[in-house]
């Protein structure tokens, strides 16, 4: 059996507030403690309470986490809320369906030919304890199917409910045990549990932690889905390390507060999503012009406008690359997966500091809000570049020309290096200037400093050596790599190139990585094929490339990409 076949995917759906996410969290945490690997994707409707929510578990033998293409097991607490996920949760005759037997099966499920097990879920939960809840009963039930000791689930539930009335913990424990004791007539092929030391976290937590570890000590931000949990984590985290988080009145304020702190020499960042990024763009240009280092984490969601706030899409590449007015070179990066948020966010911060530019980091709802079990994440050992001027430089020129284009940056308090940072075009001293020569020289300076840096091998992740090249960025990496594996089985030698650094485009590295490719396919999760058009405009190599661009919210899946390759590209 291939490794892919030994994955097990489980969907638990219910009303928002019914606790299906808690159920998924408990199961994956327990699975992790038993040495297993897995991903918990969280899907929500737009309402906070009373909408629909789904815990989408994928237990795997490896740490390559894509969304499940189909589900081996579906637990529907009710059918109305399940129906809202019909496009996203694919079930087939091989799916085992567990549901409340008091509820009528919808025709689509009844006609599926799948094994359906109806249990009196609600009745059992209520009979077990006055505070009994179905989600805990299902947790116990699934726990026993996944061969997780019920005592471990009870322990984790007690931790989760610490601070709640004791009756809730008793009810949870009783329902978990009751669920675990249910006889369910089925056997599941479980993926092997690898063991070893692991972390359990979301991409948003990974990004927030990485920021603190990289030295961020000031954050200003405005709440926005799906980035708010980055900020909530940082609020507590910054307090631990003596930093400050400022909840701003809007994103216009947030980005400028970050600019103020960074100008003061304190490493600073903000986190937002598409609409917030759109509001920030004018001032990101100010950071470019004033050469102020900062980091903006964009946890992308479906767009344009309010779009689909709770679901994932890679639609902000264009605004990240081209959204600033004027010629405004800056950094754009994208973490490739949940664990990679730890590396990429820190690297972005280091690069921004070293180059005195804003760095835009394109995460998304999929990796931001999914929880995963990962090996200890790789850290960024990129050095902190000290670009302060030598003490008391006479006739200090903040925007001095020459060298790499990076000029020593004094910060307030530095003796005798006083200057005014400016969004107006300026001369080397920083004095406003509208002259052709100052403008050309400063434009060159701001471009050259980005182009003169050697970014090293971390610009992307290259897997395989086949003649078919799948090129993607950010969170599309896992789906592309999954597709490559499936294609390999079909005899199509494939390689994947996942870009971590998007701007400046690592052209030399990309060309070298794609050497010998006969076919190129650019893979991304958006409607307009933004990466495809970017690569075509920058590199002749992509002149004959094909595009696989699919909008969210349905996640990219390896088998869809592989099928496209086999049917359309016929390499």
């Amino acid at each position, binding site marked *: 059996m291939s490794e892919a076949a030994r994955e097990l995917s489980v969907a638990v759906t219910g009303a928002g507030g019914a606790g299906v996410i808690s159920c998924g969290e408990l199961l994956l*945490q327990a699975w*992790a403690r038993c*040495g297993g690997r897995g991903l918990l994707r969280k899907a929500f409707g737009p309402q906070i309470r009373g909408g629909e929510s789904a815990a989408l578990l994928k237990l795997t033998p490896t740490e390559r986490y894509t969304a499940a293409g189909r589900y081996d097991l579906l637990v529907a607490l009710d059918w109305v809320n399940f129906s809202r996920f019909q496009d996203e949760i694919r079930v087939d005759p091989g799916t085992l369906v567990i549901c409340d037997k008091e509820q009528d099966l919808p025709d689509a499920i009844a006609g599926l030919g799948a094994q359906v097990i109806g249990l009196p879920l609600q009745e059992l939960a209520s009979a077990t304890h006055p505070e009994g809840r179905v989600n805990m009963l299902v947790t116990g039930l699934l726990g026993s199917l996944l061969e997780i*000791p019920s005592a471990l689930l009870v322990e984790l539930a007690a931790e989760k409910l610490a601070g709640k009335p004791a009756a809730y913990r008793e009810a949870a424990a009783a329902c978990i045990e009751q669920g675990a004791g249910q006889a369910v007539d089925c056997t599941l092929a479980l993926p092997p549990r690898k063991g070893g*030391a*692991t*972390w*359990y*976290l979301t991409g948003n*937590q990974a990004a927030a*932690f990485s920021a*603190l*570890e990289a030295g961020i*000590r*000031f954050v*200003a931000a405005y709440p926005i889905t799906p980035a708010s949990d980055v900020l909530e984590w940082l609020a507590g*985290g910054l*307090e*631990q*390390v*003596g930093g*400050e988080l*400022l909840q*701003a*009145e*809007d994103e*216009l*304020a*947030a980005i*400028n*507060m*970050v*600019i*103020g*702190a960074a*100008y*003061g020499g*304190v490493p*600073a960042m903000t986190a937002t999503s598409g609409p917030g990024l759109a509001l920030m763009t004018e*001032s990101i*240009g*100010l950071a470019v012009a*004033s050469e102020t280092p900062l980091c903006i984490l964009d946890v992308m969601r479906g767009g344009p406008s309010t779009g689909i706030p709770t679901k994932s899409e890679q639609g902000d590449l264009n605004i990240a690359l081209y959204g600033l007015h004027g010629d405004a070179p800056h950094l754009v990066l994208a973490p490739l997966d949940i664990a990679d948020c730890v590396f990429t966010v820190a690297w972005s911060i280091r690069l921004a500091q070293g180059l005195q530019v804003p760095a835009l980091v394109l995460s998304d709802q999929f990796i931001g809000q999914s929880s995963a*079990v990962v090996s200890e994440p790789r850290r960024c050992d990129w050095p902190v570049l000290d670009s302060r001027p030598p003490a008391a430089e006479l006739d200090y020129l903040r925007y001095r020309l020459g060298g790499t284009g990076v000029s020593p940056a*004094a910060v*307030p*308090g*530095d*003796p*005798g*290096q*006083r*200057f*005014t*940072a*400016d*969004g107006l075009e300026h001369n080397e001293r*920083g*004095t*406003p200037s509208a002259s052709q020569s100052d403008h050309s020289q400063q434009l060159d300076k701001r471009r050259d400093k980005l182009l003169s840096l050697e970014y090293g091998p971390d610009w992307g992740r290259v897997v395989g050596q086949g003649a078919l090249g799948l090129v993607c960025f950010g969170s599309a990496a896992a789906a592309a790599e999954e597709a490559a594996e499936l294609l390999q089985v079909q005899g199509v030698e494939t390689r994947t190139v996942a870009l971590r650094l998007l701007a400046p485009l690592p052209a030399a590295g990309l060309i070298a990585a794609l050497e010998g490719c006969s076919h190129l396919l650019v893979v991304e999760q958006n409607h307009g094929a933004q990466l495809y058009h970017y690569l075509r405009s920058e590199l002749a190599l992509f002149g004959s490339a094909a595009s696989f661009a699919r909008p969210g919210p349905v996640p990219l899946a390896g088998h869809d990409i592989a099928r496209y390759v086999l049917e359309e590209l016929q390499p």
Partner: protein
Amino acid sequence: MNEAIKLRAKDYKSAVKPIWCPGCGHFSVLNALTKALAALAIERDDTVLVSGIGCSSRLPAYVDSYGFHGVHGRGLAIAQGLKVARPDLTVLALGGDGDGFSIGGNHFLHACRRNVDMTYIAMDNEVYGMTKGQASPTTPIDWSNSKLTPHGPGVRPFKPAAVALACGAPWIARGYSGNPNQIARLLAEAIQYPGFSFLHVLTQCITFCPEQTDWKAIVHEREEPALQDEDAAAGLFFHEDGFETGLLYQQARSVWPPERGPVADESAAITALADRFRVAPC
């Protein structure tokens, strides 16, 4: 840095020549500011002037301190971020009526609420000068000298002091460009005040609003001490003519962010945060 020799006001001026028109009221604020900084013997290296866009927002480049000339309307946001991150610095934000009350109006509201320990100077000439004379939020309702609003803005003027009070600003004063010594005195107080001090300065624009030379006859200095009662201040700010100068309102309010003790060991704290992610095998 300890500047060994006592600096005079002119030592706080930079070599950059102002772009302002002759007779512009902003010169008075520049002079008063350098005078106040000299009087308080504030270190130039530890002072930051932050501004947005507009004629008045050009001021930071004219002072020999650190400065940041940002984008339109966001000076207050930059200044607050800087002050919160670097509480050791003396931070002043400044800008015009359009910058502060129109495009940056939301930041003005929330800066008043937040009460970060800094000073905000609004240089109010009731007109957009840099874009050549359009109505601003404080322009009189019937001012018809702009081609953009040839029948006058037709909109009730914004009352900066009343809005500041409603949003919780604890220190509100008003100056007039015809009386730079008073501005200097108010600025010295504003800088020393522990909290968000809002100095509204009527700065005439003789280029686009020559009628403002009449202000000289209208302004009147407050003789009584500053009001401390919010209701009384509301009464004043709603019903006054807008030309009363001096320290008008002052209260004690706790600043943001609240002071927290130093962190003993940052790297131990980060290790502890990482440990929260580690899975305990069973």
